[in-house]
C-alpha cells in the first residue's frame, strides 16, 4: 500500500488537479504526456531506488495508478540481489 500512496503523491505533484485514483487512461487521455512521463520516471527512480528502463515505459504500465504500482513493485523485487 505504501508504494501506491507514494506514487499518488508524486503524480499529484507532477500534474496537480488531475483525478488519478479511478483513471485507467492516464496516457490515452494525455493526463501524462511524454514530458511528464520523463519527470515521473525520474521521481519514481529516486523514491524507490530503482532503475526504470525504457522497455517499461508502455501504456499498460502508465495508464493507471494500479499499473504503475505493479511495475514499481516488480522492479523493486527484480532489482534486489
Amino acid at each position: 500500500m505504501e508504494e501506491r500512496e507514494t506514487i499518488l503523491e508524486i503524480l499529484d505533484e507532477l500534474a496537480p488537479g488531475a483525478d488519478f485514483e479511478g483513471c485507467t487512461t492516464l496516457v490515452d487521455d494525455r493526463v501524462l504526456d511524454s514530458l511528464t512521463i520523463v519527470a515521473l520516471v525520474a521521481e519514481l527512480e529516486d523514491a524507490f531506488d530503482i532503475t526504470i528502463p525504457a522497455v517499461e515505459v508502455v501504456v499498460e504500465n502508465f495508464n493507471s495508478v494500479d499499473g504503475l504500482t505493479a511495475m514499481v513493485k516488480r522492479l523493486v523485487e527484480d532489482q534486489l540481489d
Partner: protein
Amino acid sequence: MTSYFSFIFLAAFLPTAVAVYAIAPRRARWAVLLVASYLFFFWLSRELILALWVSTLAIYGTGLGLGALIRQRDSAVKAAKSGKREIRARFARKMKIVMAAGLLVNFGLLAAFKYLHFFASVIDGALGLVGITLNTELPVWAAPIGISFYTLMAGSYLIDVYRGTVAADRNLGRVALFLGFFPQIMEGPISRYGQTADQLMAGHPVTRANLYAGTLRMLWGLGKKMIVADRLNAFVKPVFADYTAYDGGIIALGAVLYTVQLYCDFSGTMDVALGMGRIFGVSLPENFRQPFFSRTAAGFWQRWHITLGTWLRDYIYYPVSLSKPLKKLTSKARKRFGNRYGPLLASSAALFCVWFGNGLWHGAGSQYIFFGLYYFVLIVAGSLIEPTAVKVAERLRISRESAGYRAFQIARTLVIIVVGELFFRAEGLDAGLAMFGAMVCDFNGASLVDGSIFGVGAAGIGLDGHDLAIVLAWVALMLVVGLIRERGVSITERVAAWPLPARWALWYTLFLAVIIFGAYGTAYAPVDPMYAQF
C-alpha cells in the same frame, strides 16, 4: 503491375491470392500468403528481393542468438544466490553486441540503398573544408520496395526480443511473413511482431463479413487515391515544379492541395492495405486518426502516420530521454527548474533525435531534414509556451475547451501542417524557402478567383471546374465521415448492422464512384503511391 492501384493487381493478382488462400488447407494458408508476398515483391523489385531475404535471415538468426542468451541468463540468475545484478549486466552486454550486429545488417542495407550519396556528400563536404577533394563516383541503385518500412519492422523485432517483450521465433516462415506480408510491404503500416505475426500464421478463413468489410475499406481508399489524390496531381505537380511562374496565392493553394493530396494518397493506400489485411482475417494497426482535427502540432503526429510516430517514441524517444546521462541531467534540472521545465532539456535532446530521424527517414534531401527540424522546434516551443498559454487563457477568462478556442487551435495547426508540407514537397530547401517567401510576400487573392487556377499546368491536363467540383464533393464526404469517426463511432460496425440491400447499395455506390470519377486513362498521368518512395 507497379502498385496496389494497378489494374492487373486489383483484377487478377489479389483475387487469385484470395481464392488460392481460401481453398488452401488452413495449415498451408500462411505459405500461400508468403508466396504471394514474394511474387508481389519480385514483380516490383526483381532481384532486389535478395535484400529482403538477407534482412529476414539476419533478424531470424539474431533473434535465435538473443533467445539463447536470454535462456542462459535466466538459468544463471535462477542458480545464483547473490550477484544477480552482475549476471544480468554481463549478459546484457553480450546481448547488446548480438542485437547491434543484427541492427547493423538491416540498417546497413537501408543506408546503402537510400543514403549512400547523402553520406558521401557529407564526407566530401567535411574533407573539402580541410582541403581534401575526393572524386567519389558511386553507383546509383534503385531501392527495394518498402525498405524504409520493413527495416523499421525488422529493427523493432530485434529490440523487442532483446527487451524480452516477444520471444525469439524459431519459425522462419513466420518471421519471413511478418516482414514481407504484401498488403503492408509498400507503405506500411509499420507493425510490431506481437501485433501481426501470429495473426498471419493463423490461416483465418475468408469470411463473408471480412470480405465485405475488407473490400468496402479498399473501395474507400481507392476513392481517396484515385478520385482526389491523382486528380490533384495535375495542379500540384506544375506548381511545385515551376513555382517561379506563379504568385503567392497559387502557391498557397498548391500547398493546401498538396496536403490534401498527400493525405488522400497515403491514408487511401492505408485503407487499401488494411482492407486487404481484413480479407485475410489480419487486423493491421491503423495509421491515421482524423489528423486534420488536431489541436496542436504534437497532437497531429499522434494522428498522422501513427505507426512511424509510435516506433520513434518507443525505440528512440524513451530510450534516449531515459538513458543514464540524460536521466542525470533531468534529476539536476528538475531541482533547479521544477517539474515542468526540468525534464525539458532531456526531452528536447530526445526529441531532436526523433525529429532528425523522422526527417532523414523520409529521404536524404535537405527539405526532409528541414521538415523534421521544423516540427522539432514547434513541438519544443509548444511545451515551453504551454504553461503561459494556460495562464493567459485563465486571465482572459477564455475556456480552453470552448468551441471557439478549439476552432482557433485547429485552424492554427492546419496552417502549421500546410507550411510543413510545402517544405516537404518542395524540390529542395531553396525552392521551399522561395515558395514560402512568395506565399507570404506575394500573396494575391485575386488569382484564386479570376480563373488563374485553371491555367496551371499544360493546356488540357490541368485542373478544370469539373475536376474541382468532384474533389470538393469527395473531400466534403470525407469530412462528414471524419466527423462521425471523431465522435467515436465505428462506421464499419454500423454498416455491418445494416440490412443486406443497404449494405450492397453502399458497396456498389462506392464501386461506381471509383469507376466513374477515378482519375485514370489517357487524360491523367498514373501516380505511384507517394509514400512508397520514402
